[in-house]
């Protein structure tokens, strides 16, 4: 019996566990989440076997047309995404056991249903099963967002907005699929064996797919679909982690799947992807840096990271167009690697922030409530998560961001000047985004996690204790983030396996080698010859430096093992005054990013005013739009959609009033006209 024989069983086991968990959620939340942990673990094992042994499995469920069947397929490509998602789900479900004690039971049920739908999205080999999974994922997420604890009206609006964008996404995906179907004549075009499409409809397929999946990923100009439901509804934190870390990953999977099935690229597709990705990355980073919402901020950061992934995909397409095989291979692996490191880091950040918010009783980053001890595991997971998202070596986020920037550095290899200019400009945007995101990450850790811990009191906040499951999930994510960074060559191997289906060969050997005394396979090369980096040995070097410091401390008489006992605490210098004890005398997170709000007022539409009301001065720094919960700057695009919604409502009202005023005759004439139009159209096209 080979490992490949286990696959169908494991797949059904995963689906069944999640399905049972979802049903059980109505009876017991804890049982549901525990089944979620088991189901995710099965999914992770399943995908690892597929990736490592290179097996594929295909299960036909039902032939609904002679050429198409509903089928589940496992390949190295989709199991890579299943692995990432399963790892995030595992941690999230584990966390939920301890976190979710004040939401209705339906939350656990919906969460498992969402996970189940995502598994279907990933393993479906045909468009129909995919769309069913996609719809079920959107609708169950919609109900999850409705569980949010914000103000009712706001929560409802946010959830319906999510649904609107989700359905818009479905429509565009269907358009893309219709393009594919009209070319290949079957719906089974998502699996690894499906043929590559060379079609005059290529541009149609690519653009509609980019819009459809971009809507889910929160790419500009649709990025509201990402941050608004999460932030404005104050959705449950475990749900937010699911939405931001894995639901957007489904978009990444979708667009990469479609791209891998397109046989030939137009140059401008690559440019479009580069431009959309670059703008999304920059906008996401900028909005993230000025967000005061402990979940809005990571949600914006997701937009940034998904933008980077799309930039890598765009580079892959441009490089393929110019037959730059080496660069194309590296770009695709970079996109896959970044999807991995982003998903685990973002999942972790939502969970950490969710726990802090739960303790503080507020999603406001600047809320002054002292945090009465979140535990050491929270701090450690928090610092490693933000360091990874801020791309500090040798953590997961650094490796993939380095890879993407290396790709863009090599845009000089593109075959003509315009592509080179586009590559350079997008490179500048991505680099800027990578710099600005440091502001948000220092802010979320400094003001959200670190600061309240220090000035906290000893008492618990409403008796909230972090149980084993919460601590365990923090430790799990810490291990994952550090592990993906330090063991980057291993992840590179998995990503190469996943990419080999698209690239036709496994690029691992080309890029991972030994160099300058670092043994193989610990150096990742970004070209031949271009850059090189060894995350593993960087980590070793860091540890060695730490060891040297500890040993030196020992040499001068400070026992390294007793360092913990020799901590001397003093009050910090506060300009010669007593330490302020009032939160209003301390620098806050709002002030931390106000310079950006002021400098980039043209982008944020920041309005500042000081209103003098009698003896009270009221400061107003906000966008012209109102605060719905506590987000503070205007997303220009939100304004656009607001106007769009207003016009649409007006138009429907107008239509229902004027065109369909209840006169039966008019209505019949309208139906007749439509019928005749359709007849004429069929006659003309049939000829």
């Amino acid at each position: 019996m080979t490992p490949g024989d286990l696959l169908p069983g494991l797949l059904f086991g995963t689906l069944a566990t999640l399905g049972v968990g979802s049903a059980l959620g109505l009876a017991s939340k804890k049982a549901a989440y525990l089944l979620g942990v088991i189901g995710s673990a099965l999914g992770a094992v399943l995908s690892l076997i597929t990736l490592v042994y290179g097996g594929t499995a295909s299960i036909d469920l039902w032939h609904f047309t002679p050429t198409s069947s509903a089928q589940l397929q496992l390949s190295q490509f989709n199991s890579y995404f299943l692995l990432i998602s399963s790892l995030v789900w595992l941690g999230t479900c584990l966390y939920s056991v301890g976190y979710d004690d004040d939401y209705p039971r339906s939350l656990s049920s919906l969460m498992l249903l969402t996970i189940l739908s995502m598994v279907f999205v990933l393993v479906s080999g045909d468009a129909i099963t995919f769309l069913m999974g996609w719809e079920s994922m959107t609708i169950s997420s919609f109900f999850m967002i409705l569980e949010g604890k914000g103000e009712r009206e706001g929560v409802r609006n946010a959830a319906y907005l999510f649904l609107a964008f989700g359905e818009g996404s479905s429509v565009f995906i269907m358009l893309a699929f219709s393009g594919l179907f009209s070319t290949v004549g079957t719906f089974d075009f998502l699996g690894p064996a499906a043929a590559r499409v060379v079609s005059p409809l290529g541009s149609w397929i690519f653009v509609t797919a980019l819009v459809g999946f971009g809507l889910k990923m929160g790419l500009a100009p649709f990025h509201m679909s990402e941050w608004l439901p999460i932030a404005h509804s104050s959705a449950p934190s475990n749900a937010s982690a699911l939405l931001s870390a894995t639901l957007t990953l489904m978009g990444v999977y979708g667009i990469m799947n479609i791209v891998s099935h397109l046989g030939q690229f137009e140059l401008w597709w690559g440019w479009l992807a580069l431009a959309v990705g670059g703008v999304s990355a920059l906008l996401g980073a900028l909005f993230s840096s000025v967000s005061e919402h402990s979940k809005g901020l990571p949600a914006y950061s997701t937009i940034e990271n998904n933008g980077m992934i799309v930039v890598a995909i765009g580079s892959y397409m441009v490089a393929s167009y110019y037959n730059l095989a080496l660069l194309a291979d590296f770009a695709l692996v970079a996109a896959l690697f970044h999807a991995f490191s982003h998903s685990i880091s973002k999942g972790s950040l939502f969970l950490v922030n969710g726990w802090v918010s739960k303790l503080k009783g507020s999603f406001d980053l600047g809320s002054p409530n002292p945090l009465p001890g979140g535990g050491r595991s929270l701090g450690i997971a928090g610092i490693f998560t933000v360091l990874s998202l801020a791309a500090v070596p040798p953590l997961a986020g650094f490796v993939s961001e380095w890879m993407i920037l290396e790709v863009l550095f090599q845009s000089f290899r593109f075959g003509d000047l315009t592509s080179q200019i586009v590559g350079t400009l997008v490179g500048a945007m991505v680099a800027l985004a990578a710099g600005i995101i440091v502001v948000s990450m220092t802010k979320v850790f400094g003001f959200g996690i670190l600061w309240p811990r220090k000035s906290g009191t000893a008492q618990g906040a409403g008796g909230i204790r972090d149980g084993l499951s919460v601590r365990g999930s923090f430790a799990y994510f810490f291990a994952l983030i550090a592990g993906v960074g330090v063991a980057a060559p291993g992840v590179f191997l998995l990503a190469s396996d996943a990419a080999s289906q698209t690239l036709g060969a496994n690029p691992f050997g080309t890029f991972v080698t030994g160099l300058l005394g670092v043994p193989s396979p610990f150096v990742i090369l970004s070209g031949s010859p271009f850059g090189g980096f060894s995350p593993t040995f960087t980590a070793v070097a860091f540890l060695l430096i730490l060891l040297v410091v500890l040993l030196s401390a020992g040499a001068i008489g400070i026992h390294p093992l007793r360092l913990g006992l020799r901590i001397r605490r003093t009050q910090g210098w506060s300009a010669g005054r007593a330490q302020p004890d009032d939160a209003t005398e301390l620098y806050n997170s709002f002030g931390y990013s106000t310079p950006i709000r002021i400098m980039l007022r043209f982008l944020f539409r920041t309005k500042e005013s000081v209103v003098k009301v009698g003896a009270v001065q009221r400061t107003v720094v906000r966008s012209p739009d109102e605060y719905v919960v506590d987000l503070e700057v205007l997303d220009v695009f939100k304004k656009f959609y607001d106007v769009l919604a207003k016009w649409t409502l007006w138009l429907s009202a107008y239509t229902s009033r004027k065109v369909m005023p209840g006169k039966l005759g008019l209505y019949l004439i309208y139906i007749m006209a439509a019928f005749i139009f359709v007849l004429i159209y069929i006659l003309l096209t049939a000829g």
Partner: protein
Amino acid sequence: MDSRRVERRNVESLGDAIQLSSVFRAGGHTYALLSDMGAHKTVLSELPPTLGEEFGPLLKGGEAPAGTPLELDVGGKVEGYGVFEFPYGPVSWGVPEAGGFKLVTYGERVVKVIPQVNFKKRGVERSVVGRTPQDALLIIERSAGNFSASYSTCFLTAVEDYLGSEVPLKARWTRAAAIELERICNHLHVFGRLAETASQNIAASQANALRERVLRLNSKHFGHRYLFGFNTVGGVRPDLSREECKELSTAVRLIAREFSELVAYFLSSRIFLDRLQGTARLERGDALSLGAVGPAARGSGLLWDDRLTCPIDPYEDIYVNVETDAGEDTMARTMVRVREIESSTIVLREILDRMPGGGVKSGNRPKQQRDGDVLDDLALCRIESPSGDLIQVVQLDMQGRVSNLHVRPASLVNWLPFARSLESNVFTDFQFAFESFGLSYADSDR
């Protein structure tokens, strides 16, 4: 009291051109000293009931105990999302002396400034009570070293006025020369500080070098770099000869000329000018109602200079060109100081050219017998110190010892205009505003 200089009338309300300059107690009464900016007159009145409450702690600050910080908070409280008070000072980079601020802000933008003074309080006014004027002088002229000549001259003029002493003409002219040298020196200092703040290090060094030359001239001709000890009751110590006057005059003219070259460079440096133009605007109305004095007030278009409006000898005989600028911003205040260096040089050269002959000291004569009017029992002097209008009110007892001293320094009243000017500016403008007002804690805290 010299009725030529001070008009007595009861003022019912402030406003229009009436600026409250000082509040002091003498002979069991509380008086308000007001400046009629339109008529260029000093008015002494019973304390008007409409005195703004915010001026209370400010002007009566002399009564606060030493070392207790006094918050000059005149506005209401500030509300809004993200608003906090950023403490700056008393021991921070950028605050040159022991003094602090609370910057009410939501980050970067200054909504309101609350200056905190009195960290440096030494109780000068109380410590001189019971001393002879000569002993008191030692303390007074050292209480704010930068403005030593103004302080000592102001105190002595009041004392001599009170005693009715005859002071030789040459002594009065020598004092005026010292005051003008002090002004040039201080304005150079402020210019240097501004250049340093704008990281114009060469300009800063040039200005400091010029200032050092003025200090050396002080030392050579007046016996002390900061003009300590040159003044004495009834006269001055240095007896400047014709040759010395000529030498001093030439040296100062040279310094002024070199400074004007530096100014030409300054006016061509866009980077420098950018930091000053439009920064920390103090509107004319605010300058008037908040009691701004000196270059700060003149930079907002208020025409008030004690050398013109309440002149002591010899300013009545000398043409003083009072510099004003309607720009209202840091640039305007800087340009007032720059032009005052030139105009002070002209005044100084006139003083030195026309320096009268004769002695520089006279013996004290006993106090003349006066009638029982309480007001006649105090003497008052206003002097235009480099940072603005300095007021001292002196009373002596029957033994000729100081029984009451009230000092109203320029820096004290300029805190509120400074705080107002900074509103809605950003953090990085702070230092420019601070330097352009020429504020001194030693001066304001006494």
